[in-house]
């Protein structure tokens, strides 16, 4: 009996399940006992009570009287915001680093290599803190801010630039800008298609641009009273008004992008090297230029081997965003930790952290896996 393959398989599996169940129940009873013993109450009721703490920089509207659950959502939106931006930026930059690593110019490939090695071999925390310190090592105080353009200044307080503001009666110009953007986007898309179809870029796109520009000029002139440009001005210590980019957000963006781009660069390089030499030669022999070869043949092919490891890197971005707080950007983990500190609901808080990260990362994985299946090379 014991020598029977199938019987063994069943025994092994039952034993494993039993072991897991035993472990689970042990944990459960211990937890229940410990909770009881220490008089720790469980419950998610606190989520609906006011948070009573502030979040410095948020994507969604938030005030400290909002309930805890909303604070968590706001924290999550902060995390997702930087994650998405970093994923986009790092992918593009990583692509160029990967290609640059293979450049024939030793200076270019050397610098790309330095980038990769620094990113790969330094802890992200160190990179972030170091990056943050660079702000005041390099940039001037707010009182001596560098003027980049009228109303646009950069200093240790970040970048501040004019923002477009309008009153509600200015609906027309806003609509105008929106409509012309749509028209232009449509026209250039059509032009691109046409270029593929016919080989020539139709002149009417340039005409459309010209037309929109002239119309915009007239429009702005006509409505010059309604549209207001909110220009930041220096008050006491800092620029107020307008639109600004804080050093914290910028640092986490730059730091995490620098870090991730290094990893993605290596993945891209691997993917490009995995494209067989024959593909390069075939493209070259057909007369495609180097740029065309990359764009039409090599990168699309490399993508096939790049996507799975890229998936892990994207997940890592989401996970690494939990370090944002060391440079003063409040992310989901920070917000929930503050909540734990304020309410003493540690178990619930940690459960929320774990659950949300799992959900976000599994969703991201599913998305990329679906994409991977879609682009898979068709075989017999």
């Amino acid at each position: 009996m014991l020598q029977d393959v199938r019987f063994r398989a069943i025994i092994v599996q039952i034993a494993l399940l039993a072991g897991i169940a035993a472990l689970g129940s042990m944990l459960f009873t211990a937890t229940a006992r410990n909770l009881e013993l220490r008089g720790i109450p469980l419950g998610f009721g606190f989520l609906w009570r006011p948070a009573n703490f502030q979040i410095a920089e948020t994507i969604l509207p938030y005030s400290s009287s909002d309930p805890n659950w909303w604070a968590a959502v706001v924290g999550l939106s902060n995390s997702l915001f930087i994650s998405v931006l970093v994923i986009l930026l790092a992918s593009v930059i990583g692509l160029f680093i990967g290609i640059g690593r293979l450049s024939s110019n030793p200076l270019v490939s050397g610098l790309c290599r330095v980038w990769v090695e620094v990113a790969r071999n330094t802890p992200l925390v160190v990179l972030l803190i170091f990056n943050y310190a660079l702000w005041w090592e390099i940039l001037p105080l707010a009182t001596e801010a560098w003027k980049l353009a009228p109303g646009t200044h950069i200093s240790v307080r970040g970048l501040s630039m004019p923002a477009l503001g309008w009153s509600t009666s200015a609906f027309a110009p806003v609509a105008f800008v929106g409509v012309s953007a749509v028209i232009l986007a449509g026209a250039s898309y059509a032009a691109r298609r046409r270029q593929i179809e016919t080989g020539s870029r139709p002149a009417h796109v340039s005409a459309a641009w010209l037309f929109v520009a002239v119309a915009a000029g007239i429009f702005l002139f006509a409505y010059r009273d309604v549209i207001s440009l909110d220009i930041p001005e220096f008050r006491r210590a800092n620029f107020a008004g307008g639109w600004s980019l804080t050093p914290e957000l910028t640092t986490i963006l730059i730091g995490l992008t620098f870090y991730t781009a290094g990893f993605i660069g290596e993945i891209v390089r691997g993917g490009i090297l995995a494209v067989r030499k024959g593909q390069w030669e075939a493209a070259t022999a057909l007369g495609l230029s180097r740029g065309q070869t990359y764009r039409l043949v090599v990168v699309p092919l490399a993508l096939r081997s790049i996507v799975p490891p890229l998936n892990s890197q994207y997940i890592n971005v989401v996970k690494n965003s939990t370090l944002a707080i060391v440079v003063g950007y409040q992310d989901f983990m920070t917000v929930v930790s503050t909540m734990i500190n304020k309410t003493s609901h540690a178990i619930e808080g940690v459960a929320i952290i774990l659950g949300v990260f799992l959900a976000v990362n599994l969703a991201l994985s599913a998305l990329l896996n679906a994409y991977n299946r879609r682009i898979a090379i068709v075989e017999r």
Partner: protein
Amino acid sequence: MNDGEKLSDRAPAIRIENLGKSFGDFQVLRNVNLTVCQGEKIVVCGPSGSGKSTLIRSINRLEQHQSGRIVVEGTELTNDLKGIEKIRSEVGMVFQHFNLFPHLTILENCTLAPIWVRKLPREEAEEIAMHFLRKVRIPEQADKYPGQLSGGQQQRVAIARALCMKPRIMLFDEPTSALDPEMIKEVLDTMIELANEGMTMVCVTHEMGFAQAVADRVVFMDGGQIIEENEPVAFFSSPRSERTKLFLSQILGH
């Protein structure tokens, strides 16, 4: 080819003079001279490592030569980018391993270069592509992907893809040696058809049947040099050098 006109009277399509090429210290080609006339069909053979591939890859500059000259359709191959692009669009090449683009359909494989290099409108490019796909007798596969085709079919697509650029010269580097026996015939038939239409062709192959059927000249290489060149009948019946005799005895005796 038994047309009346003497081939050597025509304008040369390819002129190779004193070609020398080495990889590092290793000299792969030495002092190679070869002139291919318009419409001529040349078969290149020789033992492995003798430099056959390197020679024909030099013709469209997949390899850079170090000494000597190569003139293709009147343009000399130098570092001049424009010249290289011009020549590449006039010289079609078919590789041993097909090298189709696996992420594009058969049709897209064929229209890629005409659209992006020749800047043809898509419709026109597709028309041309279908024309050549019909010619290699697989128009019905146009919307499949290379991975779904057999080796012989893939190689015929590779030929069609090269033809879509309307090249004046075709280079073949052992186009049948990666194929199963049944598929070799399909591909050779396609090549014979091309040859009969008067295309200038340089073909590295060990298919001696093919050489006898279509070649105007057979070139035998060894150790980076051309050892012997002759018309097929003479080449096979009375090879001059010992090396050639030995080689022929090996491949024909098999």
